[in-house]
């Protein structure tokens, strides 16, 4: 099984993407999608290092939904600030110490930080243990760090052990 589906999630993604593109549930396309779901990740496998290996899919889904919600909410906040007086914005950089070690997890964290408005991951420190984050409005650095670690990093540590 592992040989055929080195990255099951990716295979699933390919399968879904194909059906979405073809916009049909035709048996021919289902078959084709299945074939591609095997072949394409295998082909891409040659380029990828280790695969992501997600542990807790349900938690991942929950995290995803939380992120979506956060995106909407904080977007509203940032929109307000953009439309308001610029002098009231206090931007700033902050280094977030990382406990997560899985590179996929770090990538996901950085992506989430960037996608959620108000924060933006700029750099992974050379030691790989800190993430440089730019905050649109930084009132309390410690609180921001804590919030990110609690809301995103700890679920991610479970998903990408």
């Amino acid at each position, binding site marked *: 099984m592992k040989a055929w589906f080195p990255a099951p999630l990716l295979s699933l993604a390919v399968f879904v*993407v194909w059906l979405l*593109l073809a916009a049909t549930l035709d048996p021919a396309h289902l*078959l084709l999608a299945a074939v591609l779901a095997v072949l394409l990740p295998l082909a891409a496998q040659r*380029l990828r290092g280790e695969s992501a290996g997600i542990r807790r899919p349900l938690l991942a889904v929950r995290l995803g939904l939380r992120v979506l919600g956060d995106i909407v909410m904080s977007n509203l906040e940032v929109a307000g600030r953009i439309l308001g007086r610029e002098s009231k914005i206090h931007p700033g950089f902050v280094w977030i110490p990382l406990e997560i070690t899985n590179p996929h997890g770090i990538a996901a964290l950085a992506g989430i930080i960037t996608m959620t408005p108000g924060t933006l991951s700029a750099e992974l420190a050379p030691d790989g243990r800190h993430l440089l984050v730019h905050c649109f409005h930084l009132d309390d650095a410690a609180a921001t760090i804590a919030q990110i670690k609690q809301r995103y990093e700890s679920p991610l540590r479970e998903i990408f052990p």
Partner: protein
Amino acid sequence: MLEALLAIPFVLALAIGLLPRERRRTAAWLAGLAPVAGLVLLALLTPPVLSGEGVRSLTEWVPTLGLAVSLRLDGLAWMFAGLVLAIGGLIVLYARYYLSEEDSMPRFFCFLLLFMGSMLGLVVAGNLILMAVFWELTSVSSFLLIGFWNHRSDAREGARMALAITGTGGLALLGGVVLLGRIAGSYELDVVLAAGPQILASPWYPAALGLVLLAVFTKSAQFPFQFWLPHAMAAPTPVSAYLHSATMVKAGVFLLARLHPALAGSDLFFYVVSGIGAVTLLVGSWHAIFQHDIKGLLAYSTISHLGLITLLFGLSTPMAVVAGLFHIINHATFKASLFMAAGIIDHETGTRDMRRLGGLFKLMPYTGALAIIASLAMAGVPLLNGFLSKEMFFTEALEVEGHQFMRWGVAAAAVLAGAFGVAYSLRFVDDTFFGPGPLRIETTPHEPPRWMRIPVEVLVVVCLAVGIVPALTIAPVLHAAATGVLGDDVPAYSLAIWHGLNVPLMMSLFGLAAGIALYFGIKRLIDLYGISYDSLGRRVFEWKTDRAIAWAGRLTATLENGSLQRYLGLMVLAALVMGATPFLAASLSPGGSQPMPPLGWLVWAVGVAATLATVALHRHRLLALVVMGAVGLAVSLAFLLLSAPDLALTQLLVEMVTIALMLLALNYLPEESPVERSRLRRWRDAAIALAAGGGTAALVHAAITRPLDTVATEMLALSLPEGGGTNVVNVILVDIRGFDTLGEITVFGVAGLIVHALLRHVRLRPERVVDGTPDPLLIPNLVARLLLPLALAVSLYLFLRGHNLPGGGFIAGLVLAVPMLLQYVLSGTDYVEQRLGFDYPRVIGLGLAAALLTGLGSWLLGYPYMTSHTDYVAVPLLGKLPLASAMAFDTGVYLVVAAGTLLMLGMMGSVRAPGARRGG
């Protein structure tokens, strides 16, 4: 037989030319064979010639041009052929002993026979164009002969000068004979000669005459072209003896004789030809007196005698023609012998400078005697052949008709030239064989080898024989030749030595006396040895050619200054001129327009603003590149809004790859363009650019507001039924105009190969190197790797449905290549290629093969290349699937595009800095 006569020298020349250098004797024997065999053949051909009917042969060459290998042996040709062969034979014998060990005998005889053949061809040609052909061949082969001692600069220069002058004449001759042929309606000599009155009456006559005379005067060294001949004396003496007695220079007067029936008879001919002849006669003979080099003296003497012959042909009376022909023979014999004698003297003493020579008669009395007799013939002393023709000349000079000035002038010139001729002949004899000397000679001169002397003896005997018993010797030859020129108009003439005590004889005697007096007078009055003429003609010629070459060089350098800016500017200007010219005479009414959709203004604003910003920022390259990205986006959007989804997709994808390529290149280029110094140039370019832009816009507007009746109507209708696809653009690309696409992917693949060829193993120094190790870019990297299989799916999808909806091989290929580009950017070349090491050139080949072979499939069914074939194949579970051959073709496109793009990107990315190690 005539062909054989002509072919022999050429065949033997080729044979000799292939001999190795050491085969001297073989070369000489073969060379001797040519004139001997030629003379035998000529003898066999003699009866019909003497009977007046002549010999003819015709082989077609280029019939549409009227150019034929038409040979014609009449009396004139026969006489000349005899001269060429007979004297040629003697020259071969002489040269056999003359040439030294350092000279390559095969090469010499090869050139000599080439020349002999060309000369023969000239005289037996029965077609004007063929005549011009052989005429130029004599120029070329004489060039080789004159330049034979090419280690000497005088030989090289003399040869080049001779070729330039006589070659020019040859091209003039070509022009002249083409004109004559146009007037006469044929190039065949028989026709042309019969068309004399017609030619004289033609408005083109002066031009034709002028061109032919240019050829004659250059070849026969007539004033003012005479200067090349003395410089041709740098040739080995056998060459001079041959070229300047019987052949090369005689070609000119031969032509005069040959075309006499067609060209003579006008005042123009009379005044120009006899005038030039008279001037040359005087100039040549006067200069001859003051030469120090024996060959120089003989050269100027030759010029003068040719002037005499020219003058005679100019006079144009039948008797003058006879005299001219007679003198041609006589001059050939005595001048050839004199040149050979000069060669012997040079050979024995090592010099030809008469200031150092003298007293040789004691040392080599036999040669001396021969030379003295020949000189006397040259001086026109009775009992020698020169006397007879000179007498005839004097007779004619007294009977000149026309302008009074001409009558007196010719008579005076005749007497004066006679005296000069005596004087230089005397100088030659006196300065060489008598008086003090020889001076500063290393060896003691003695008589030459017996075989070397024989040619001189033969010629001197001829001089004597003709001079004493002309009726028995030369009369039939002369008669035959005269018949060849004059036909039935040959006048009655007598070749006796004694015509009574008449005016011509008095003139001869006076000339003799005056010449002797002149020589000794001059010798006493002025220091002959101190006079040195620098040839004015040569100075002018060289100054002119040098100046011309220098001027040509400057002009060329001015035009082609190596500036791409100029070349491109000129192209734009040329386009402007050609685009604007039609509107000078016409105006255009604008057609109807459609309303602008609101989004159109957005696209317009983005596009125009970004274009202007690109130009404004162009010096800051990276900025310009970013801004230009928006131009590309605007163009894509325009395509999308205007119903061209395939175009939009392609433009977007190409844009991405282009930006990447430009950035890759920018790493090795300066970041900024320096400010150009010339403000004027910037304004000028801006003006050109505005004109180009304005003109294009106006023309586009004019075109697209007009109705169009296009073949595309049929394409839309046929796309589905005949092409099997609903996306008409794709059907056009892979089927209707699939041949374009085949070419297009070839271009693409080759571009990839060029990048490969140019960057393989190449090291280039980057403009600036950023310190530190490359950032692993972990986050983008992981995203890109996740994206890759998804992008592959999209790519395949776009490929499979391209025939019916936007997509197709090209777009799909790029959708595959762009995420791969991302891998290259984020992971590096080495990483990607270690894992995915495709042999991209081979994949390009396979893609092309797919495209080619799909097209070839239709041959099997008897249809033209690339006829598409669509079939529905029933597959269990899946139902009927369309299998279009066009799809297979598109696979080729897909492969070539993907592989080509990746090859370019990979090669650009794998360039290393000098000194960097691979994998660093």
